[in-house]
């Protein structure tokens, strides 16, 4: 099962970082291949992404369900469920205050292609996840730091 974890330090206090991260609209466009998302309710949303599988790119619809949103611990946990592709997975988002001016962001994602040829898709998917996680985290970092001036 392809898994990725990416950490980075944002040069900003916890509050603005968490304030940014907890509003999905703010960072959704930073997700590689993001096309649109629709919030069904507090917990559930449907995301349309263009995702790479090897040299092939597909438009994937995923249902994202937030299973735990902990404003205290600054931690979000979610599950993924493919709508037009057989795939499941989940992830977490954790912000940790490192100092008054620095916050660590941790992004974890795992995804598992299902169906008969899932084992092959996962092999192709694996190398794609890391750059996606990195790009998103770095863009969030840059945006928050920019907003902080």
């Amino acid at each position, binding site marked *: 099962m392809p898994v990725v974890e990416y950490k980075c330090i944002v040069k900003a206090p916890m509050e603005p970082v968490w304030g940014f991260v907890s509003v999905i609209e703010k960072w959704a466009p930073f997700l590689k291949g993001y096309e649109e998302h629709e919030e069904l309710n507090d917990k559930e949303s449907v995301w349309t992404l263009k995702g790479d599988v090897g040299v092939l790119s597909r438009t994937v619809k995923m249902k994202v369900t937030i299973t735990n949103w902990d404003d205290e611990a600054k931690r979000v946990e979610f599950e993924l469920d493919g709508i037009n592709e057989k795939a499941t997975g989940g992830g977490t988002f954790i912000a940790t205050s490192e100092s008054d001016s620095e916050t660590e962001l941790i992004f974890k994602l795992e995804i598992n292609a299902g*169906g008969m040829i899932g084992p092959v898709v996962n092999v192709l998917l694996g190398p794609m996840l890391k750059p996606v996680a990195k790009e998103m985290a770095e863009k969030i970092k840059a945006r928050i730091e920019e907003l902080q001036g």
Partner: protein
Amino acid sequence: MAIKKPGKWDLETEVLVLGTGCAGLPAAILAHDNGAKVMVLERTAKVGGTTAVSGGGVWVPNNHLMKEKGIKDSKEAAMTYCKRLSGGKSSDELIEKYLDVVPEMIQYMVDNTPIKFEITELSDYHPEFEGAHQGNESRTLGPLLYDTNELGDAKENLRVSPTMSMPMTFSESRQWKPTCTPEKVPWEKMGERLANGITCWGGGVTAPLYKACLDRKIEIVLNTRAIDVVMEDGKVIGVVAQQDGKDICVGASKGVILACGGFEWNEELKTDFLPGPITHPCSPPINEGDALKMGMSAGAALGNMSEQWGWISAIIPGEESEGIQLNRGIIYERSMPHCIIVNPKGKRFVNESAAYNDMFKPFWEVDENTLKFKNLPAWAIFDQQYKDKYPFLTAMPGEDVPEWLVQADSLEELAEKINIDAAGLKETVEKFNGYVKDNKDPDFARGDSEYDLYWGDDRNEPCACLGTLEKPVFYACEMLLGSLGTKGGPKTTLDGQVIDAHGKPITGLYAAGNAMASVAGGSYFGGGATIGSGMVFGYLAGIHAAKQ
């Protein structure tokens, strides 16, 4: 117009090869092995060309593996067969040259590069014609698995197919039948091979040939697109190429070999030369007719210009490769039981199971009254029996029905959804179901040729490619005009030298592969006739150019 000689060359070599597919790589290898300094220009960042996304078979009558296995073949039989298929669009001399050279060429490649082959079970594409071979005496060689780690860092430069990337051999594929019994495929093993850099199909050809170039220290310049020839006194002495946004001049004292593909991605050239459209080519979107234009610039005679390696395709909306919609080749789907192809009147118009190049032809038929294409849009129609048993593109049996398949509970409703004649479709299906029961298709002879059965389900009785359409749900998927590439271009001598409008060789200019007027003429000899001819005429051009 060809360009005049510049004051100074930006790059210089003896033999300059344009393109890195099955024609360019052998051309480079042979030019090198015959003593020339060789340089290769590749317009993209990747090595492998159209071959990289292909099945990788090579059509080699009389090959060494047949001899080892005791399979009899003769040049005369192959000649009879090829002449019938070319339909007079290729010369007897060129066909004979192909047949003479292809076994020798393959032996050379096996002996002098890491490429390896096995015998397959694929029959010639018209096994019922005189001189043809059946599947049990196949002339098609399939590449073996190749470990791309052998390439070192250059592995990253390999062009990878968006659809043919499953690393299995022809014989494994024949054993597991991913198109028919996908549940038998050891998918975990496939995943492992992929993770470990094992390639096959087209990659089984391009990767070891690329390795052979690296071993020879042949310089392959990526991201450099040749766009015109440089001529002096009627002789080609180099090219102008685009590199990093500027034009450079590359000198070639012994010759330029055009091996950079056809023009199936150039709208203007397709309109200029082909009788009908190719809207959804299955090749990488890099074949824009650069070779043809350079040939024309140099005053080349052109041949076989109205033909192409026809292949019906389909799309899954949203699937992209290289930034544009991916066109997927359709082959086994149309040949399976429980699937037919119909036109807007709901009528069948073709033997759905016939070989791809030839079954494409009726898709270009024009209605003399409306001037529209008679059979477009065309639709594959199949029923739940199909869906339960076989894959259709990426929709696996037993799995959910994807959005891109049209589905309906009745044929009438299906016809309405895809805007075709419902009564016509119903009548067609009833008639076809009767044919299935009689095990005889009097309209289009589906199943009569051994070839028709190859992509079917041999568990299906009594015929591997005939099955009724009767169990709802019914499904439809539009069949589009694809292509493996064009096959018209500069005409050549038997050594691959481009000739002019008066039949005289143009010194310093060669063509091979889809860049040249194909030896196959109007048809397709058998699996790998494309790659076979690319390799043979690349091989010959490399030798001839080196000896200048």
